[in-house]
């Protein structure tokens, strides 16, 4: 008898018992606590179910505005060989500005296939571009266009900014818009007048662009055109690019660019990408030891390879290596700087000043950029750009969300390097920015 009860008890325990669920048993070591997970929603209204045909009438236009109040303190580098003693650029130590950006967009038909958009920018007093370039009052239309979007066809007419390429910092194939500052690409938003057509098919998407402004002088009236084909296979997206145009007013043929890029997920959380651009002609000035200007025959190559790591949400890290075949070698850079010493010692030389081109005073650059959000209110961003001559530019930014509408921000840009280096000759040693951003 006792054996039979023991047997039954064993069977019952092995079976788990008809009235003892595993969930109940697990409750003793419940890893998420015993609280009802939905308790925080007490009193919340349920989901509203709309009619199958969404109502288009009464739709409001999209309106967005951002206002920035900024103050700057600059640590001016008197040792800069392109701005000796701050005599040429006459940079101010303390400046401040108010910048406003506004976007308005709306659809012109019920089917929402035709849309217009306006983006405007205005800045008062003195302000700085992302790379520290000082500017005065300015008001401009960044974008103003109308577009039409069908199932596979898209057409846009007007001033618009589009970016080509898959890389995050350097974009050598991005021939349509002017190059961005890789350590602070935000807010470089001005577009170009263009007609943009895009056709999507089974073999990918073809984009055709006709524009009139691209030759280093944004006010020129030369015709330019671009062609892009993009596709995807598996985890990889790729594209081919071609950008060409009419000769310059002085008769020189346009540089003409052909490029390619791809991006792929290399491993969970890690993306790999690459861009390569071949430019057929090189009109850049190179300097001989005696200060004479030289030109190089043939074209040049620019390429970037990089990888990004997702760290959750908007947090992430990316590293890029950029090769600029148009950049100066060590000797060419020293020749340039010695020429600057001779010509800028007592006067100014516009051509020579313009040849001090960002990201082209060396041939190799490495960029590492970290963006981290924590406690949902703080954002920390750190970008370090190191040139082949061992000089560097570091940008650190801390932002604090005061509310959903206001954000306080501090930025410090620090340039370091020796006498013969690119960033060592930057007009600023450091630039401190403090500001408030309001979004509506």
């Amino acid at each position, binding site marked *: 008898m006792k054996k*039979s009860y023991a*047997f*039954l008890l064993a*069977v*019952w325990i*092995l*079976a*788990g*018992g*008809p009235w003892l*669920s*595993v969930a*109940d048993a697990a409750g003793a070591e419940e*890893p*998420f*606590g015993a609280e009802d*997970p*939905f308790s*925080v*929603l007490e009193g919340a209204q*349920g*989901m*509203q*179910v*709309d*009619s*199958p045909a*969404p109502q288009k009438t009464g739709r409001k236009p999209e309106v*967005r505005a951002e206002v920035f109040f900024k103050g700057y303190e600059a640590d001016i580098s008197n040792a800069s060989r392109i701005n000796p003693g701050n005599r040429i650029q006459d940079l101010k130590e303390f400046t401040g500005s108010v910048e406003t950006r506004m976007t308005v967009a709306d659809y012109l038909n019920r089917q929402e296939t035709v849309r217009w958009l306006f983006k405007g920018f205005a800045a008062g007093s003195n302000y700085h571009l992302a790379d520290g370039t000082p500017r005065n009052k300015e008001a401009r239309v960044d974008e103003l266009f109308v*577009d039409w*979007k069908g*199932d596979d066809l*898209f057409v846009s007419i007007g001033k618009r*900014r*589009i*970016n080509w390429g*898959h890389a995050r910092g350097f974009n050598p194939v991005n021939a349509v818009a002017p190059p*961005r500052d890789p350590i602070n*690409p935000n807010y470089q938003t001005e577009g170009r007048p263009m007609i943009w057509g895009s056709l*999507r098919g089974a073999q990918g998407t073809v984009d055709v662009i006709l524009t009139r402004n691209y030759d280093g002088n944004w006010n020129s009236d030369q015709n330019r055109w671009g062609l892009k084909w993009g596709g*995807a296979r598996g*985890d990889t*997206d790729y594209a081919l690019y071609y950008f060409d145009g009419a000769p310059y007013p002085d008769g020189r043929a346009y540089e003409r660019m052909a490029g390619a890029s791809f991006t792929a*997920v290399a491993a*969970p*959380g890690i*993306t790999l*990408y690459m861009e390569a651009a071949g430019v057929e002609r090189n009109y850049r000035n190179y300097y001989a030891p005696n200060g004479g200007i030289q030109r190089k025959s043939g074209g040049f190559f620019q390429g970037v390879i990089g990888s*990004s790591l*997702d760290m*959750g*949400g*908007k*947090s992430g890290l990316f590293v890029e290596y950029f090769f600029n075949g148009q950049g100066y070698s060590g000797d060419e850079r020293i020749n340039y700087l010695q020429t600057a010493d001779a010509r800028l010692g007592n006067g100014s030389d516009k051509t020579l000043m313009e040849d001090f081109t960002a990201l082209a005073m060396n041939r190799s650059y490495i960029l590492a950029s970290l963006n981290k959000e924590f*406690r*949902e209110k703080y954002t920390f961003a750190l970008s370090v750009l190191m040139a082949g001559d061992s000089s560097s530019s570091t940008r650190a930014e801390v932002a604090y969300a005061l509310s*959903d*509408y206001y954000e306080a921000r501090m930025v410090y840009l620090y340039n370091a390097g020796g006498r013969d280096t690119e960033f060592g000759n930057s007009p600023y040693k450091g630039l401190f920015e403090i500001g408030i951003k309001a*979004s*509506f």
Partner: protein
Amino acid sequence: MKRIRLMAMLVMAGMALAATPRMSYAGDAGASALEILDRADDHWDLNLRNSLVEMELLVYRENELRTTYKMNLRYQDNYHVLAETTYPPRNEGEKMLQAGKRNYWLFLPNINKAVKISESNSLSNSDFSNTDILSPRLSAEYAPSIAGTEKLNGVETYKLELLAKSEDTPYAKIVYWVRKSDFAPLRRDYYTFSQQLLKRLDMRSAAKGMNGMPDTFVMSSVLEKDKKTVLRFLKYTPKVAYQEDTFSPGALMKR
């Protein structure tokens, strides 16, 4: 007497064995684990197909509401979804696109650029990863088996154990509780490849007449007990016809 005792023992042993989860399930329903999984995910995926959903993400930290995001979710199918942030204003216009299986993109309006991202990345700093919400159907990525039946908060459920078919998936294992009466999804526990319990998703359907479609989701972290994210569908519009181009990365820069 001995015979009666023996019969009683056999009957009770039979009852006990019948209560063993794996045996009971197969005997009761006759449906396979894959069928249960698909029917559970039908509640979610099929109802969302070709719909527009206005949703909010409530991010709780240290048991306090830290951030609220609002998004419009354009859902075509399990692999074609576009989420656009509409609130707060400082994040307005940011878009997260799933343009195919394991093909995720983030559009940053400040630089007018779309960048490819990983599926394991979290959605707007919440406890949800991109796949948790944008790709609800699990049968393509995970092989299900029946782990038993259980009572979950007083409700009879099927308990499924889903094992990743490859190491490319964000999770090694998902334990999935499905309501027995109508196959409604109730809870998922997510495990890492080191077999550690990572987080838990609780679901409920509050709206009536929605065929059991979950519209409220709570993702809780096992690492920090006071850390969780609530996702609520606020407004649901079915039968929305999207242009195919809506879910291509190239379209992010167009509209």
